[in-house]
């Protein structure tokens, strides 16, 4: 399975990962081999086998609806690059 350069660039953009030009062919090869594995899996006859959404044979435990968290804003904001007035600041997201 071959992945086009464009496809790699699009995936990189969606995933916000910087891939420099020199590594694109290597990344393409590695992703291709993953897709080959997927092809192999898809070749297996799964007729009558129920789809599995999690590899563990267990079901989700549920929490009671009770407040257990306290306000730790100061601690969290101490490690943020920019804060003001209790808000996290990020580069402007609208024009």
């Amino acid at each position: 399975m071959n992945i086009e350069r464009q496809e790699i660039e699009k995936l990189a953009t969606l995933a916000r990962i910087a891939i420099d030009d020199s590594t694109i062919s290597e990344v393409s090869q590695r992703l291709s081999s993953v897709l080959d594995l997927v092809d192999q899996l898809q070749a297996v006859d799964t007729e009558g086998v129920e789809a599995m959404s999690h590899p563990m044979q267990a079901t989700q435990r549920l929490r009671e609806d009770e407040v257990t968290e306290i306000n730790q804003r100061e601690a969290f904001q101490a490690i943020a690059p920019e804060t003001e007035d209790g808000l996290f600041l990020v580069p402007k997201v609208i024009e």
Partner: protein
Amino acid sequence: MSWDTVIGLEIHVQLATKTKIFSGASTAYGAEPNTQACAIDLAMPGTLPVLNKQAVNYAIMFGLAVDAEIGQVSAFERKNYFYPDSPKGYQTTQLERPIVGRGNVEIQLADGSTKNVRIHHAHLEEDAGKSLHEGNFNSNFSGIDLNRAGTPLIEIVSEPDMCNAEEAVAFARKIHGIVTSLGICDGEMSQGSMRFDVNVSVKPSGSETLGIRTETKNLNSYKFMEEAIKREVERQIDVIEDGGTIAQETRLYNGDTKVARSMRSKEEANDYRYFPCPDLLPVVVSDEEVAELRRNLPELPDARQARFVEQYSLSDYDAAILSSDAAMAKYFEAVTSACNNAKLAANWTMGELSARLNNEDLSIANSPVSAAQLGGLVTRIADNSISGKMAKEVFDGIWAGEGSADEIIEARGLKQVSDSGALEQMVADVLTANQAMVDDYINTDEAKRKKKLGGFMGKIMQASKGQANPQQVNQILAQKLNELL
């Protein structure tokens, strides 16, 4: 050429849980920014989500209320996209196996007809935080408040069964009535507790093929929804009739400017690369748990409407309006029990009170006039102590916080005169003082006399400072004038 409109809705409903869907942080509205965003909500490394049982139960209750199949096994997926108000870089949601499957909702239209709208499914997911673009901070930045991040939502997806704005609004109101009656959502639209995405397309009348649809996102009132639909339908027809084609796109409607714009493709990145969330196991709900929730379902709008007709002898129309909103229904019943006059209680709840609340953008839960106070006012209208006109004045007084109806009637001397002896004397005095008018009345053609009564009424009401009971005065006046003929 005539066109058919096809509308489908996606409704985001914030669930009224005390805590987030995956963490024990509070969901209380209006807290200081980021004081209710814990390590899980902030996506700190090493944290694991644990699903809130109440959120699951609320979603199931909704499913039961719309006769839907409940997914005995449901699962969560990750919807991947980057936006600063979503710290994880994905939204945890349900795609392949939602908790609520196909269902049905019946809507009632203004002409009295009903229509079935199919529910495609409803799924559990988490809300995002809020981005602020203006505020007390450096204007090169956006401010992020993550208090809302992780608030549980159900997203209700309808089939494209509606064909105009009226039907879409009726459906939205019906869902509002259902979720507030269930108590699974506070229904406060001004706080974003319910938000609507509207999918609209048009096709030549009678055509089987659907047109290309657009999605207008994040409408938070019925009014905006109606406007946005009407404008989008017009726009699409204009584009097609001018020989153009509709682009499948996401649009944002600005309720202040009444203009919708296409979202930039950058904002849209419609490639979410969903995959099963490895942090969450499949959610299994037993038949017993579902049966237990079904047994305890509160009264729903349809059942309540039937009861209002039966118990209070209301018209279908009145009963439909009063039962559609849980808070309004509760208010109406409290007024009725305070005054024992359902018809008047209904009129005042739907009329004066609703109009005033609408005007001032208040929900009935925040009404300055309590149900007990309105009941007190209606009691005085019903026993003829005050006229309808005085009642409006008293209502204004209660609204302004001047006290109960009786206190205001007393303080303002508004008591209506219904004592027939006093009224007869008053009428007689006015007739004596206005002999010319009386002569004129007698000399007028019989068929035209009725029109002359208004003049006498005016004088009598003036003489009584507006306090005479108008129905009684009418009777006495007609009788006295007849005697003079």
